[in-house]
Protein backbone atom coordinates (compact mmCIF):
# COMPACT_ATOMS: atom_id res chain seq x y z
CA UNK A 1 0.00 0.00 0.00
CA UNK A 2 1.31 3.39 -0.94
CA UNK A 3 0.89 6.57 0.92
CA UNK A 4 2.15 9.77 -0.67
CA UNK A 5 2.54 11.47 2.66
CA UNK A 6 5.39 10.34 4.86
CA UNK A 7 4.39 9.64 8.43
CA UNK A 8 4.79 12.61 10.70
CA UNK A 9 7.60 10.85 12.60
CA UNK A 10 9.79 11.02 9.47
CA UNK A 11 9.53 14.76 9.09
CA UNK A 12 12.56 16.52 10.40
CA UNK A 13 11.76 19.55 12.49
CA UNK A 14 13.01 22.64 10.70
CA UNK A 15 15.39 23.67 13.47
CA UNK A 16 17.07 20.25 13.45
CA UNK A 17 17.09 20.30 9.63
CA UNK A 18 18.95 23.63 9.67
CA UNK A 19 21.36 22.44 12.35
CA UNK A 20 22.10 19.32 10.35
CA UNK A 21 22.76 21.42 7.27
CA UNK A 22 25.09 23.59 9.29
CA UNK A 23 26.85 20.54 10.73
CA UNK A 24 27.29 19.07 7.26
CA UNK A 25 28.53 22.39 5.95
CA UNK A 26 30.97 22.71 8.83
CA UNK A 27 32.15 19.13 8.37
CA UNK A 28 32.75 19.86 4.71
CA UNK A 29 34.64 23.04 5.51
CA UNK A 30 36.62 21.18 8.15
CA UNK A 31 37.64 18.44 5.75
CA UNK A 32 38.35 20.87 2.95
CA UNK A 33 40.49 23.10 5.13
CA UNK A 34 42.36 20.18 6.71
CA UNK A 35 43.05 18.69 3.27
CA UNK A 36 44.11 22.11 2.00
CA UNK A 37 46.56 22.66 4.86
CA UNK A 38 48.01 19.14 4.61
CA UNK A 39 48.17 19.37 0.82
CA UNK A 40 49.76 22.79 0.91
CA UNK A 41 52.43 21.65 3.35
CA UNK A 42 53.20 18.56 1.30
CA UNK A 43 53.28 20.59 -1.90
CA UNK A 44 55.86 23.00 -0.48
CA UNK A 45 57.99 20.44 1.34
CA UNK A 46 56.99 16.96 0.21
CA UNK A 47 59.57 16.42 -2.49
CA UNK A 48 62.09 16.35 0.34
CA UNK A 49 60.61 13.08 1.48
CA UNK A 50 63.21 11.19 -0.51
CA UNK A 51 63.33 9.03 -3.55
CA UNK A 52 60.91 6.42 -4.63
CA UNK A 53 62.64 3.12 -5.10
CA UNK A 54 59.84 1.73 -7.24
CA UNK A 55 60.93 3.29 -10.51
CA UNK A 56 64.53 2.18 -10.64
CA UNK A 57 65.46 2.15 -14.30
CA UNK A 58 67.11 -1.07 -15.37
CA UNK A 59 70.19 -0.13 -17.33
CA UNK A 60 70.39 -3.63 -18.78
CA UNK A 61 72.80 -6.33 -17.88
CA UNK A 62 76.25 -6.41 -19.40
CA UNK A 63 78.46 -9.43 -19.54
CA UNK A 64 78.12 -11.20 -16.22
CA UNK A 65 80.64 -9.91 -13.71
CA UNK A 66 83.77 -11.96 -13.48
CA UNK A 67 82.99 -14.19 -10.52
CA UNK A 68 86.05 -14.19 -8.38
CA UNK A 69 87.19 -14.36 -4.82
CA UNK A 70 87.46 -10.96 -3.15
CA UNK A 71 90.50 -9.28 -4.63
CA UNK A 72 93.14 -7.45 -2.69
CA UNK A 73 91.23 -4.16 -3.00
CA UNK A 74 87.72 -5.46 -2.27
CA UNK A 75 85.98 -4.73 0.98
CA UNK A 76 84.00 -7.61 2.45
CA UNK A 77 81.45 -5.26 4.01
CA UNK A 78 77.83 -5.77 2.95
CA UNK A 79 77.04 -4.12 -0.38
CA UNK A 80 74.57 -1.26 -0.51
CA UNK A 81 71.45 -2.44 -2.40
CA UNK A 82 71.27 -1.61 -6.13
CA UNK A 83 68.09 0.41 -5.51
CA UNK A 84 69.89 2.73 -3.09
CA UNK A 85 72.99 3.08 -5.24
CA UNK A 86 70.88 4.10 -8.23
CA UNK A 87 68.19 6.29 -6.58
CA UNK A 88 70.22 8.29 -4.07
CA UNK A 89 72.63 10.33 -6.15
CA UNK A 90 74.38 13.64 -6.21
CA UNK A 91 74.64 14.56 -9.90
CA UNK A 92 73.76 18.25 -10.04
CA UNK A 93 73.67 18.17 -13.84
CA UNK A 94 70.56 15.98 -13.44
CA UNK A 95 69.06 17.97 -10.56
CA UNK A 96 69.93 19.19 -7.08
CA UNK A 97 67.71 16.81 -5.18
CA UNK A 98 69.07 13.32 -4.62
CA UNK A 99 66.02 11.77 -6.26
CA UNK A 100 66.34 13.97 -9.38
CA UNK A 101 69.17 12.10 -11.16
CA UNK A 102 67.26 8.80 -11.36
CA UNK A 103 64.10 10.68 -12.39
CA UNK A 104 65.87 12.55 -15.22
CA UNK A 105 68.33 9.80 -16.18
CA UNK A 106 66.44 9.06 -19.40
CA UNK A 107 67.59 12.41 -20.83
CA UNK A 108 71.24 11.38 -20.88
CA UNK A 109 72.16 9.26 -23.90
CA UNK A 110 75.34 7.30 -23.20
CA UNK A 111 75.64 6.16 -26.84
CA UNK A 112 77.10 7.30 -29.17
CA UNK A 113 79.83 8.75 -26.97
CA UNK A 114 83.44 9.66 -27.48
CA UNK A 115 86.20 10.32 -25.01
CA UNK A 116 89.10 12.65 -25.80
CA UNK A 117 92.47 11.84 -24.32
CA UNK A 118 94.88 14.74 -24.75
CA UNK A 119 97.29 17.21 -23.19
CA UNK A 120 100.73 16.06 -22.11
CA UNK A 121 100.55 12.70 -23.86
CA UNK A 122 102.54 11.20 -26.71
CA UNK A 123 99.50 9.71 -28.42
CA UNK A 124 96.45 12.00 -28.03
CA UNK A 125 93.24 10.65 -29.50
CA UNK A 126 89.48 10.73 -29.45
CA UNK A 127 87.93 7.29 -29.20
CA UNK A 128 84.47 5.82 -29.33
CA UNK A 129 83.38 4.64 -25.88
CA UNK A 130 82.81 1.04 -27.00
CA UNK A 131 86.22 0.89 -28.59
CA UNK A 132 87.76 2.28 -25.43
CA UNK A 133 85.94 -0.27 -23.27
CA UNK A 134 87.08 -3.11 -25.57
CA UNK A 135 90.67 -2.35 -24.66
CA UNK A 136 90.20 -3.54 -21.10
CA UNK A 137 88.72 -6.73 -19.65
CA UNK A 138 86.05 -5.67 -17.12
CA UNK A 139 87.08 -6.09 -13.54
CA UNK A 140 84.90 -5.87 -10.43
CA UNK A 141 85.97 -3.77 -7.46
CA UNK A 142 83.92 -3.58 -4.27
CA UNK A 143 84.75 -0.16 -2.84
CA UNK A 144 83.53 1.96 0.01
CA UNK A 145 82.27 5.35 -1.14
CA UNK A 146 82.17 8.23 1.34
CA UNK A 147 80.28 11.42 0.48
CA UNK A 148 81.42 14.71 1.98
CA UNK A 149 77.85 15.09 3.31
CA UNK A 150 78.47 12.33 5.83
CA UNK A 151 76.91 9.26 4.23
CA UNK A 152 78.56 6.23 2.68
CA UNK A 153 77.87 3.19 0.54
CA UNK A 154 79.61 -0.01 -0.54
CA UNK A 155 79.42 -0.39 -4.31
CA UNK A 156 80.57 -3.21 -6.61
CA UNK A 157 81.88 -1.27 -9.59
CA UNK A 158 82.74 -2.75 -12.98
CA UNK A 159 85.56 -1.19 -14.92
CA UNK A 160 89.32 -0.94 -15.28
CA UNK A 161 92.20 0.87 -13.56
CA UNK A 162 92.84 4.39 -14.82
CA UNK A 163 96.54 3.54 -15.01
CA UNK A 164 95.80 1.10 -17.84
CA UNK A 165 94.08 3.84 -19.83
CA UNK A 166 96.86 6.34 -19.23
CA UNK A 167 99.40 3.76 -20.40
CA UNK A 168 97.56 3.67 -23.75
CA UNK A 169 98.22 7.36 -24.43
CA UNK A 170 101.73 7.49 -22.94
CA UNK A 171 102.06 10.58 -20.70
CA UNK A 172 105.01 12.83 -21.50
CA UNK A 173 107.66 13.59 -18.91
CA UNK A 174 105.93 16.97 -18.31
CA UNK A 175 102.64 15.42 -17.21
CA UNK A 176 102.02 15.99 -13.52
CA UNK A 177 98.23 16.14 -13.17
CA UNK A 178 95.15 14.62 -14.80
CA UNK A 179 91.99 16.61 -15.45
CA UNK A 180 88.56 15.04 -16.04
CA UNK A 181 85.68 16.82 -17.79
CA UNK A 182 81.98 15.89 -17.71
CA UNK A 183 79.77 16.13 -20.81
CA UNK A 184 78.52 19.68 -21.46
CA UNK A 185 75.06 19.43 -23.00
CA UNK A 186 72.14 21.19 -21.28
CA UNK A 187 69.67 19.15 -23.35
CA UNK A 188 70.94 15.89 -21.89
CA UNK A 189 71.98 17.40 -18.56
CA UNK A 190 69.28 20.02 -17.87
CA UNK A 191 70.90 21.08 -14.58
CA UNK A 192 73.51 22.82 -16.73
CA UNK A 193 70.85 25.34 -17.77
CA UNK A 194 71.25 26.91 -14.34
CA UNK A 195 74.58 28.35 -13.24
CA UNK A 196 74.55 26.57 -9.88
CA UNK A 197 78.15 25.56 -10.56
CA UNK A 198 80.61 26.55 -13.25
CA UNK A 199 79.79 23.96 -15.96
CA UNK A 200 81.10 21.67 -17.26
CA UNK A 201 82.08 19.84 -14.12
CA UNK A 202 85.79 19.22 -13.90
CA UNK A 203 87.85 17.25 -11.43
CA UNK A 204 91.52 16.51 -11.16
CA UNK A 205 94.14 14.27 -9.63
CA UNK A 206 97.86 14.39 -9.22
CA UNK A 207 99.50 11.96 -11.67
CA UNK A 208 100.72 9.62 -8.91
CA UNK A 209 97.16 9.50 -7.51
CA UNK A 210 95.80 8.79 -10.98
CA UNK A 211 98.29 5.96 -11.51
CA UNK A 212 97.54 4.34 -8.15
CA UNK A 213 96.09 0.85 -8.62
CA UNK A 214 92.98 1.77 -6.57
CA UNK A 215 92.03 4.57 -8.98
CA UNK A 216 89.33 3.15 -11.19
CA UNK A 217 87.29 4.01 -14.26
CA UNK A 218 83.80 2.57 -13.78
CA UNK A 219 81.54 1.61 -16.69
CA UNK A 220 79.13 -0.50 -14.68
CA UNK A 221 77.93 -1.51 -11.26
CA UNK A 222 76.41 -4.70 -9.92
CA UNK A 223 77.30 -6.37 -13.21
CA UNK A 224 75.10 -3.99 -15.20
CA UNK A 225 75.87 -1.04 -17.40
CA UNK A 226 76.40 2.12 -15.41
CA UNK A 227 73.03 3.90 -15.07
CA UNK A 228 73.03 7.54 -16.22
CA UNK A 229 72.48 8.80 -12.67
CA UNK A 230 75.70 7.11 -11.64
CA UNK A 231 77.66 8.75 -14.46
CA UNK A 232 77.19 6.66 -17.60
CA UNK A 233 78.98 5.67 -19.65
CA UNK A 234 82.27 6.28 -17.85
CA UNK A 235 83.06 7.74 -14.45
CA UNK A 236 86.02 8.12 -12.17
CA UNK A 237 86.14 6.34 -8.80
CA UNK A 238 88.81 7.28 -6.24
CA UNK A 239 87.78 5.36 -3.14
CA UNK A 240 89.96 7.17 -0.60
CA UNK A 241 88.57 10.58 -1.58
CA UNK A 242 85.13 12.13 -1.04
CA UNK A 243 82.60 11.11 -3.65
CA UNK A 244 82.59 14.45 -5.47
CA UNK A 245 86.09 13.72 -6.76
CA UNK A 246 84.60 11.00 -8.95
CA UNK A 247 83.70 12.89 -12.14
CA UNK A 248 80.70 11.46 -13.97
CA UNK A 249 79.86 11.02 -17.67
CA UNK A 250 83.41 11.85 -18.69
CA UNK A 251 84.15 13.13 -22.19
CA UNK A 252 87.70 14.34 -21.75
CA UNK A 253 90.78 13.26 -19.85
CA UNK A 254 93.69 15.68 -20.15
CA UNK A 255 97.17 15.43 -18.73
CA UNK A 256 98.50 18.77 -17.57
CA UNK A 257 101.67 20.35 -16.23
CA UNK A 258 99.90 22.41 -13.60
CA UNK A 259 97.21 21.63 -11.06
CA UNK A 260 93.88 21.75 -12.91
CA UNK A 261 90.92 23.80 -11.69
CA UNK A 262 88.23 21.67 -10.11
CA UNK A 263 84.59 22.70 -9.98
CA UNK A 264 83.86 22.47 -6.25
CA UNK A 265 87.22 23.97 -5.38
CA UNK A 266 86.36 26.96 -7.59
CA UNK A 267 82.86 27.27 -6.12
CA UNK A 268 83.88 27.18 -2.43
CA UNK A 269 87.63 26.80 -1.93
CA UNK A 270 87.38 27.03 1.86
CA UNK A 271 85.03 24.05 1.90
CA UNK A 272 86.27 21.82 -0.91
CA UNK A 273 89.97 21.28 -1.34
CA UNK A 274 91.77 19.90 -4.38
CA UNK A 275 92.74 16.75 -2.51
CA UNK A 276 89.44 15.96 -0.74
CA UNK A 277 90.95 12.93 0.96
CA UNK A 278 88.51 11.38 3.42
CA UNK A 279 89.79 12.66 6.74
CA UNK A 280 87.87 12.33 10.03
CA UNK A 281 90.18 14.90 11.64
CA UNK A 282 89.33 17.76 9.27
CA UNK A 283 85.68 18.83 9.55
CA UNK A 284 83.75 20.46 6.74
CA UNK A 285 82.19 23.75 7.92
CA UNK A 286 78.76 22.12 7.99
CA UNK A 287 79.43 18.43 8.37
CA UNK A 288 81.57 16.73 10.96
CA UNK A 289 83.70 14.20 9.13
CA UNK A 290 84.35 12.14 12.26
CA UNK A 291 81.40 9.84 11.63
CA UNK A 292 79.22 8.74 8.74
CA UNK A 293 75.96 6.95 8.13
CA UNK A 294 76.20 3.91 5.91
CA UNK A 295 73.08 4.04 3.74
CA UNK A 296 70.64 1.55 5.24
CA UNK A 297 71.98 1.95 8.78
CA UNK A 298 70.22 3.90 11.50
CA UNK A 299 73.31 4.78 13.53
CA UNK A 300 76.58 6.40 12.55
CA UNK A 301 79.98 4.76 12.38
CA UNK A 302 83.42 6.29 12.78
CA UNK A 303 84.99 7.46 9.52
CA UNK A 304 88.37 5.93 8.76
CA UNK A 305 91.35 7.99 7.56
CA UNK A 306 91.54 7.79 3.76
CA UNK A 307 88.19 5.97 3.96
CA UNK A 308 89.95 2.84 5.21
CA UNK A 309 92.54 2.81 2.41
CA UNK A 310 95.33 4.45 4.44
CA UNK A 311 97.60 1.44 4.17
CA UNK A 312 97.56 1.69 0.38
CA UNK A 313 97.62 5.46 -0.14
CA UNK A 314 98.90 7.33 2.93
CA UNK A 315 102.46 7.31 1.50
CA UNK A 316 101.29 9.50 -1.40
CA UNK A 317 100.91 12.35 1.08
CA UNK A 318 104.01 11.84 3.19
CA UNK A 319 105.25 15.19 4.50
CA UNK A 320 102.10 17.08 3.50
CA UNK A 321 99.98 18.95 6.04
CA UNK A 322 96.57 17.40 5.37
CA UNK A 323 94.82 20.12 7.37
CA UNK A 324 96.05 22.64 4.82
CA UNK A 325 95.92 20.33 1.82
CA UNK A 326 92.39 19.11 2.57
Amino acid sequence: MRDDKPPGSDITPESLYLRRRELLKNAGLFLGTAAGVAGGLLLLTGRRLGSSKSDVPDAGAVAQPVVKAAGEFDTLEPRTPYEDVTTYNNFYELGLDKADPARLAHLLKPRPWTVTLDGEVHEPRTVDIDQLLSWFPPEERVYRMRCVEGWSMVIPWMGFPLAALLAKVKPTSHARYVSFTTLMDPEQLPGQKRAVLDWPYTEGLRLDEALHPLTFMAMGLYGRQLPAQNGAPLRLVVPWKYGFKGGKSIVRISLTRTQPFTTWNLAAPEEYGFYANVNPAVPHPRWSQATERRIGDLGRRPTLPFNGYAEQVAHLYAGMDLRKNY
Partner: protein
Amino acid sequence: MASAPHPWLNPAVTVGGLVPLVSLAVQGPLGGLGSNAIEAALNYTGLSALVLLVASLACTPLRFVTGWTWPARVRRTLGLLAFTYASAHALTYVVLDQGLSGSALLESLGERPFIFVGFAALMAMVPLAVTSTNAWVRRLGFPRWQRLHRLAYVAGVLGVVHFAWRVKKDLTEPMLYGAVLAVLFALRVGEAMRKRRARAAAAARNPA
Protein backbone atom coordinates in the same frame (compact mmCIF):
# COMPACT_ATOMS: atom_id res chain seq x y z
CA MET B 1 32.99 34.63 24.96
CA ALA B 2 31.28 35.10 21.64
CA SER B 3 31.15 31.91 19.65
CA ALA B 4 33.66 31.75 16.85
CA PRO B 5 32.09 32.14 13.43
CA HIS B 6 34.25 29.31 12.05
CA PRO B 7 34.22 26.55 14.67
CA TRP B 8 35.82 24.16 12.19
CA LEU B 9 38.76 26.42 11.34
CA ASN B 10 41.30 25.74 14.06
CA PRO B 11 40.57 22.02 14.41
CA ALA B 12 40.93 21.72 10.64
CA VAL B 13 44.26 23.56 10.53
CA THR B 14 45.53 21.46 13.45
CA VAL B 15 44.53 18.17 11.86
CA GLY B 16 45.72 19.19 8.39
CA GLY B 17 48.99 20.45 9.81
CA LEU B 18 49.65 17.26 11.74
CA VAL B 19 48.72 14.80 8.99
CA PRO B 20 52.12 15.11 7.23
CA LEU B 21 53.96 14.64 10.53
CA VAL B 22 51.97 11.51 11.33
CA SER B 23 52.49 10.19 7.81
CA LEU B 24 56.22 10.82 8.23
CA ALA B 25 56.28 8.94 11.53
CA VAL B 26 54.50 6.02 9.87
CA GLN B 27 56.48 6.02 6.61
CA GLY B 28 59.90 6.29 8.26
CA PRO B 29 59.98 2.88 9.94
CA LEU B 30 58.30 1.30 6.90
CA GLY B 31 61.10 2.44 4.60
CA GLY B 32 58.97 4.89 2.63
CA LEU B 33 61.41 7.78 2.99
CA GLY B 34 64.02 6.69 0.47
CA SER B 35 67.58 5.60 0.98
CA ASN B 36 68.49 8.05 3.74
CA ALA B 37 65.34 8.23 5.85
CA ILE B 38 66.90 10.36 8.58
CA GLU B 39 68.12 12.97 6.13
CA ALA B 40 64.68 12.98 4.47
CA ALA B 41 62.96 13.39 7.85
CA LEU B 42 65.32 16.22 8.81
CA ASN B 43 64.78 18.07 5.54
CA TYR B 44 61.05 17.58 5.70
CA THR B 45 60.44 18.58 9.32
CA GLY B 46 62.82 21.54 9.06
CA LEU B 47 61.23 22.97 5.94
CA SER B 48 57.72 22.36 7.30
CA ALA B 49 58.61 24.28 10.46
CA LEU B 50 59.81 27.20 8.36
CA VAL B 51 56.74 27.15 6.10
CA LEU B 52 54.37 27.10 9.09
CA LEU B 53 56.30 29.82 10.89
CA VAL B 54 56.17 32.06 7.83
CA ALA B 55 52.46 31.24 7.47
CA SER B 56 51.84 32.27 11.08
CA LEU B 57 53.74 35.50 10.47
CA ALA B 58 51.65 36.14 7.36
CA CYS B 59 48.35 36.19 9.30
CA THR B 60 48.51 39.73 10.64
CA PRO B 61 49.79 41.37 7.42
CA LEU B 62 47.13 39.41 5.52
CA ARG B 63 44.50 41.01 7.77
CA PHE B 64 45.94 44.48 7.06
CA VAL B 65 45.80 43.89 3.33
CA THR B 66 42.45 42.13 3.04
CA GLY B 67 40.52 43.22 6.11
CA TRP B 68 39.66 39.54 6.77
CA THR B 69 39.55 38.49 10.40
CA TRP B 70 39.95 34.72 10.06
CA PRO B 71 43.75 34.80 9.54
CA ALA B 72 44.21 36.18 13.05
CA ARG B 73 42.18 33.25 14.39
CA VAL B 74 44.58 30.61 13.04
CA ARG B 75 47.80 32.47 13.86
CA ARG B 76 48.34 30.73 17.20
CA THR B 77 47.58 27.30 15.75
CA LEU B 78 50.04 27.83 12.91
CA GLY B 79 52.71 29.05 15.33
CA LEU B 80 52.26 26.04 17.59
CA LEU B 81 52.40 23.72 14.58
CA ALA B 82 55.65 25.40 13.53
CA PHE B 83 57.02 24.80 17.02
CA THR B 84 55.88 21.16 16.87
CA TYR B 85 57.71 20.61 13.57
CA ALA B 86 60.81 22.47 14.79
CA SER B 87 60.85 20.27 17.90
CA ALA B 88 60.43 17.13 15.79
CA HIS B 89 63.28 18.39 13.59
CA ALA B 90 65.57 18.95 16.59
CA LEU B 91 64.62 15.61 18.16
CA THR B 92 65.32 13.80 14.88
CA TYR B 93 68.74 15.42 14.78
CA VAL B 94 69.61 14.80 18.44
CA VAL B 95 68.19 11.30 18.84
CA LEU B 96 68.26 9.66 15.41
CA ASP B 97 71.05 11.48 13.60
CA GLN B 98 73.52 12.05 16.41
CA GLY B 99 72.40 9.06 18.49
CA LEU B 100 72.07 11.20 21.64
CA SER B 101 75.84 11.58 21.72
CA GLY B 102 76.53 14.54 24.01
CA SER B 103 80.02 15.15 22.71
CA ALA B 104 78.92 15.12 19.07
CA LEU B 105 76.12 17.58 19.90
CA LEU B 106 78.39 19.95 21.78
CA GLU B 107 80.83 19.82 18.89
CA SER B 108 77.98 20.53 16.44
CA LEU B 109 76.82 23.55 18.42
CA GLY B 110 80.31 24.85 19.05
CA GLU B 111 81.89 24.32 15.67
CA ARG B 112 79.09 24.47 13.16
CA PRO B 113 77.41 27.88 13.11
CA PHE B 114 74.54 26.55 11.01
CA ILE B 115 73.60 24.10 13.75
CA PHE B 116 73.92 26.84 16.35
CA VAL B 117 71.66 29.17 14.40
CA GLY B 118 69.04 26.44 14.08
CA PHE B 119 69.26 25.79 17.80
CA ALA B 120 68.87 29.51 18.49
CA ALA B 121 65.76 29.61 16.26
CA LEU B 122 64.21 26.78 18.26
CA MET B 123 65.10 28.46 21.55
CA ALA B 124 63.48 31.70 20.34
CA MET B 125 60.25 29.77 19.79
CA VAL B 126 60.13 28.19 23.25
CA PRO B 127 58.90 31.29 25.15
CA LEU B 128 56.36 31.90 22.38
CA ALA B 129 54.95 28.39 22.68
CA VAL B 130 54.86 28.65 26.49
CA THR B 131 53.05 32.00 26.46
CA SER B 132 50.66 31.08 23.67
CA THR B 133 47.64 30.66 25.99
CA ASN B 134 45.03 33.30 26.74
CA ALA B 135 46.01 33.12 30.42
CA TRP B 136 49.53 34.22 29.52
CA VAL B 137 48.24 37.08 27.37
CA ARG B 138 46.30 38.31 30.41
CA ARG B 139 49.19 37.73 32.79
CA LEU B 140 51.69 39.66 30.67
CA GLY B 141 49.27 42.28 29.46
CA PHE B 142 48.69 42.51 25.72
CA PRO B 143 51.38 45.12 24.85
CA ARG B 144 54.11 43.18 26.64
CA TRP B 145 52.86 39.87 25.24
CA GLN B 146 52.86 41.40 21.76
CA ARG B 147 56.42 42.69 22.13
CA LEU B 148 57.58 39.25 23.26
CA HIS B 149 55.89 37.60 20.31
CA ARG B 150 57.89 39.70 17.87
CA LEU B 151 60.51 37.04 18.60
CA ALA B 152 58.66 35.04 15.96
CA TYR B 153 60.34 37.24 13.35
CA VAL B 154 63.72 36.57 14.93
CA ALA B 155 63.00 32.84 14.77
CA GLY B 156 61.95 33.21 11.11
CA VAL B 157 65.12 35.06 10.15
CA LEU B 158 67.29 32.54 12.03
CA GLY B 159 65.38 29.74 10.31
CA VAL B 160 66.12 31.20 6.87
CA VAL B 161 69.80 31.65 7.75
CA HIS B 162 69.95 28.06 9.02
CA PHE B 163 68.35 26.86 5.76
CA ALA B 164 70.67 28.96 3.58
CA TRP B 165 73.69 27.63 5.40
CA ARG B 166 72.48 24.10 5.00
CA VAL B 167 72.09 24.00 1.22
CA LYS B 168 75.31 23.20 -0.55
CA LYS B 169 75.09 25.60 -3.45
CA ASP B 170 71.66 26.58 -4.73
CA LEU B 171 70.31 29.43 -2.58
CA THR B 172 67.08 29.96 -4.53
CA GLU B 173 64.71 28.39 -2.03
CA PRO B 174 66.11 29.95 1.17
CA MET B 175 66.19 33.33 -0.63
CA LEU B 176 62.54 32.87 -1.51
CA TYR B 177 61.57 32.41 2.14
CA GLY B 178 63.80 35.36 3.07
CA ALA B 179 62.02 37.51 0.49
CA VAL B 180 58.58 36.51 1.80
CA LEU B 181 59.68 37.39 5.34
CA ALA B 182 60.98 40.76 4.12
CA VAL B 183 57.66 41.54 2.39
CA LEU B 184 55.69 40.57 5.51
CA PHE B 185 57.91 42.71 7.67
CA ALA B 186 57.61 45.66 5.28
CA LEU B 187 53.80 45.36 5.41
CA ARG B 188 53.90 45.55 9.20
CA VAL B 189 56.23 48.53 9.20
CA GLY B 190 53.98 50.24 6.65
CA GLU B 191 50.92 49.58 8.82
CA ALA B 192 52.68 50.88 11.94
CA MET B 193 53.66 54.07 10.10
CA ARG B 194 50.12 54.53 8.75
CA LYS B 195 48.73 54.21 12.28
CA ARG B 196 51.23 56.69 13.66
CA ARG B 197 50.36 59.21 10.92
CA ALA B 198 46.68 58.68 11.62
CA ARG B 199 47.26 59.30 15.34
CA ALA B 200 49.30 62.40 14.58
CA ALA B 201 46.59 63.69 12.24
CA ALA B 202 43.93 63.04 14.85
CA ALA B 203 46.02 64.85 17.46
CA ALA B 204 46.45 67.81 15.07
CA ARG B 205 42.68 68.00 14.51
CA ASN B 206 41.92 67.84 18.21
CA PRO B 207 44.64 69.80 19.96
CA ALA B 208 44.52 69.13 23.66
